[in-house]
């Protein structure tokens, strides 16, 4: 019996495929490239349509309505947008947001570059990179609450030290002038490691013989930094600037934990203002109009930056 079965086997191996190809439905599902592809992307496509594509258009539609979630939405065309144009609170929140971006980006970029050069030159260890990256890996909320505690006017370590040094206690989060820069400091603390890491990676791609050649030509470290390193990490620079500016525009978590938009609206950024309108006062239409305005601003910022910094190609080609 076993020998009989074995005799058949060479035959059954070879023609089996042409035979199977005729079995229709299941075979098509398993072997037709396009059908398989659609099966593979189906769950992701469903998620994309439900939570990205349709909501994007729905947000646009909601922004044309008056809707408090209790009554049915009422179509009011561009009324939300004309109201937005005259809303001094909106313009103030835009001003606060821009100011926040201005505090953040230059300092974060300079610290990032400094750390990246130092990491590349002397401290290449993963441990060191992990340490400076650690603040980025913890939650925004946790970063905010730790700083809120450290800068507490009465009990905070930072203020106790300031008192001990003789400067005196400073109400960082409750002073109208200081609240926004303080929130920027928390953000810089959290992101400096990531920024440094990205610049560091960009610098790794620069061939070392360029520096060697510059050194032979007599260029000092500063000149080779400004004339070689900076121009050659331009793609990284564009990426870091675009993502960190877009991220800064959308600051929310830190404000939700610390100042709640105060004192006297000095930290009411655009996303906090959208949150207040949409989820505190349930003005869904107006909140959507604000968020669409934010989207347009971010798109413009991105395009302008890409244009100015000519992101596409580095001098390395």
């Amino acid at each position, binding site marked *: 019996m076993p020998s009989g079965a074995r005799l058949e086997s060479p035959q059954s191996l070879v023609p089996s*495929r042409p035979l199977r190809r005729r079995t229709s439905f299941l075979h098509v599902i398993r072997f037709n490239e396009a059908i398989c592809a659609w099966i593979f992307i189906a769950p992701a496509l469903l998620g994309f349509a439900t939570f990205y594509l349709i909501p994007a258009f729905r947000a646009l539609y909601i922004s044309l309505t008056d809707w408090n979630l209790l009554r049915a939405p009422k179509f009011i065309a561009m009324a939300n947008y004309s109201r937005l144009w005259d809303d001094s609170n909106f313009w103030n929140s835009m001003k606060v947001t821009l100011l926040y971006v201005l505090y953040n980006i230059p300092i974060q970029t300079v610290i990032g570059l400094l750390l990246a050069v130092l990491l590349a030159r002397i401290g290449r260890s993963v441990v060191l990179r992990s340490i400076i990256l650690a603040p980025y890996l913890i939650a925004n909320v946790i970063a905010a609450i730790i700083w809120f505690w450290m800068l507490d006017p009465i009990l905070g370590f930072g203020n106790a030290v300031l008192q001990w040094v003789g400067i005196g206690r400073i109400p960082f989060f409750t002073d109208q002038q200081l609240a926004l820069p303080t929130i920027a400091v928390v953000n810089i603390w959290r992101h400096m490691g990531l920024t440094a890491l990205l610049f560091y990676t960009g610098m790794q791609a620069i061939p070392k013989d360029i520096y060697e050649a510059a050194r032979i030509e007599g260029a000092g470290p500063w000149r080779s930094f400004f004339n070689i390193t900076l121009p050659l990490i331009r793609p990284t620079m564009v990426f870091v600037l675009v993502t960190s500016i877009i991220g800064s525009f959308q600051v929310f978590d830190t404000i939700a934990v610390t100042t709640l938009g105060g004192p006297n609206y000095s930290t009411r950024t655009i996303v906090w203002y959208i949150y207040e309108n949409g989820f505190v006062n349930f003005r869904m239409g107006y909140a959507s109009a604000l968020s669409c305005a934010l989207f347009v601003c971010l798109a413009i910022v991105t395009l302008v930056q890409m244009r100015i910094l000519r992101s596409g190609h580095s001098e390395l080609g």
Partner: protein
Amino acid sequence: MASNTETPSSRLTPFAPIRVNSRFNVSLWSGWLVLAVFAVISLGPMWIAIKTALSDSSTLFSGASSLLPQHPTLFNFERVMGLISRTDPRLEQTSFGKVDFYRALLNSFAFTLLAVVPQISFSAMAAYAFARLRFFGHRLIFFLFLAATMVPGVVLFIPNFILIKDLGWLNTYQGMAAPYALMTPFAVFFLRQMFLSTPKELEESARIDGASYFAIFFRIVVPVHRSALATLTILAGLNAWNEFFWPFLVGRDESVRVMAVAINAFRAQQAGGVPDWSGLMACTVLGIVPVAILLVFFGRKVVESLQYTGYR
């Protein structure tokens, strides 16, 4: 100083190796000093949190400028985790005794698991299709995925909140996890890039041997790219663990709220104007612990993956 021209150590270019034999290298030492200062800036605030969490709350004022906890105690951890009986007299000294952070940590684990595991699976399937299979409309769909990353989160939160509300999913795990569970554009891009970067000969020869696309995906693509899949799981897991805005909108109820939402809520419960700082810091330390464990065990993987993706 004539030898100066011959020793490269005096002419530091950003990547030149630094000679150890130079007698006193000011720039080397000042460089280490700056790095050390930034290492302290990075970790210092976390140490202050740990110190406070280990302090008795009655010593917060007297020990404010101290770097070490006074009368170190685990009491704060025990009480936020609910390990102390409600009638314990020591609870009366603190401004709020009924913090249930244990529940919040469990919720965070559930949310992270629900958001990440299906996200990686479905994103990997889609990434494989985009990387290897030809089908009508694949360019358009991929372009749409790419364009979606341009839309700020807050634009989508409003319609998504309404959808979750209409489904009756407010304050449920599925409501919090749904927008992340089926895909994230980043996961699809990341994996597509990984799949494209490996040669497809192995998959093609499996095709010729009669393997179906499903067999190729599960038996070849997934095992070959398990390292990339692990990296992405770590990154997505970190993000889900730290997520605040969306869970804050749809999952504020005590039964489902995650770690970050709970910390924010505890902060707002100010009994007598002063938050329960030692309890709050115990919560933050517990919220950092999983991240710290990940960093200790997979530090190199985390650092290198962030280094090459700039994940935000």
